[in-house]
């Protein structure tokens, strides 16, 4: 079992990233808290020795995405929140950002991860492929299609 200090450091380091992933998938702050708790307990109990901080972060992201998928599959999950309600919950989101966030959250689930990991976390397509366990070409295709969809929604601006 990992030390309390180690787990608390990981909470400080990764809870932002995890919360974003949870909101992307579950659209619920309450569920995000549950998922973060589950993932950190798994992290605490895990014996995996990470080669680097990057390796550790990739593990956290993968486990969080899987936990979100499991919850979505769960028969008992009934908490769903309207997008506008969710965006309003976050005070720090400006009206312009909320428009983008809404656009991203409206994307089909398969595109959300690649957009988040590429544009926010700064991962390359091969890195995303490794984290998500997908083919690199598939990731490229998902990225292209997601960009196209966002462009249509947000008014044709170029995505870098």
């Amino acid at each position, binding site marked *: *079992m990992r030390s*309390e200090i180690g*787990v*608390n450091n990981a*909470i*400080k380091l990764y*809870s*932002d990233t*995890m*919360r*974003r992933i949870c*909101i992307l998938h579950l659209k619920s702050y309450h569920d995000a*808290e549950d998922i*973060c*708790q589950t993932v*950190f*307990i798994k992290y*605490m*109990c895990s014996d995996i020795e990470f080669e680097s901080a990057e390796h550790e972060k990739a593990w956290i992201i993968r486990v969080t995405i899987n936990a979100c998928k499991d919850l979505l599959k769960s028969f008992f999950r009934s908490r769903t929140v309207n997008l506008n309600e969710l965006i309003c919950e*976050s005070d*720090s*989101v*400006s009206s*312009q*950002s*909320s428009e*983008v*966030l809404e656009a*991203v959250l409206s994307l089909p689930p398969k595109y959300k991860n690649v*957009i*988040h990991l590429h*544009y*926010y976390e700064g991962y390359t397509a091969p890195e995303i492929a490794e984290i998500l366990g997908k083919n690199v070409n598939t990731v490229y295709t998902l990225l292209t299609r997601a960009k196209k969809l*966002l462009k249509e929604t*947000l008014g044709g*601006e*170029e*995505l*870098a």
Partner: protein
Amino acid sequence: MHNRIKNAFDGIQADEAFEKKLMTKVAKRRSTIKAAGFYRKAIAATATCLLVLCLGLVGYYLYFTPVTVISVDVNPSVELGINRFDNVVSIEAFNDEGEKIVNSVKLQHLNYKDAVDKLLDTTDFSKYAESEGLVYLTVFGDNKESDIVAEGLAEHTRSRSDVHCSHSLNKETKNAHSNGLSMGKYEAYLELKSINPNVTVDEVKDLTMRQIKDRIRENDKDDFTEELPEQNVDRKESKGQHHGNGH
């Protein structure tokens, strides 16, 4: 656009309260897991202790339960309890002479052959054996182990002309101890009693095995002279399988 997406996601953050809540919940879960681990370990340790205890008890029972008795009788009467592993696990004397011998020699945990050799070679025992001329070794027990011990003992003592070895299945010998006699001596008493019903345990108690056997022979001779055929049948009361040297 890159910046717009980044800004949009920046709005979703885990504030300090969220992190603290997480830390508290994870810490709480840590203590639960630790407690569960402790109980699991405690249960496992208890189960292991119980298993060891049970195995120990079973082992103790198997080792220390005699399945065969070797009654060694001259004048001193000594009984050796033999377990299923052919080792001596109990030694009991039935008269003062026997008591003296038992106290002078350590036979516990020895193989029955070694124990009998050691017992017969003691000065006290050989003294009686010489004066009486014959040592009676009687194996008691109606089981496979007893058969093996009886055969082994007969084979082991075959070269000794001063030893008579037999295997008895007589169930009446279970009353021997309550009458203060060894099983070997009690069987000889029963044999004598079958010929001469007036004989009592007290009369036999102080007799040597040789003397009891002589009385049996004498009575037997008288019976033949008086031609009492039914007493010949009584004489078979002891259903011992006799083998070895001597008679």
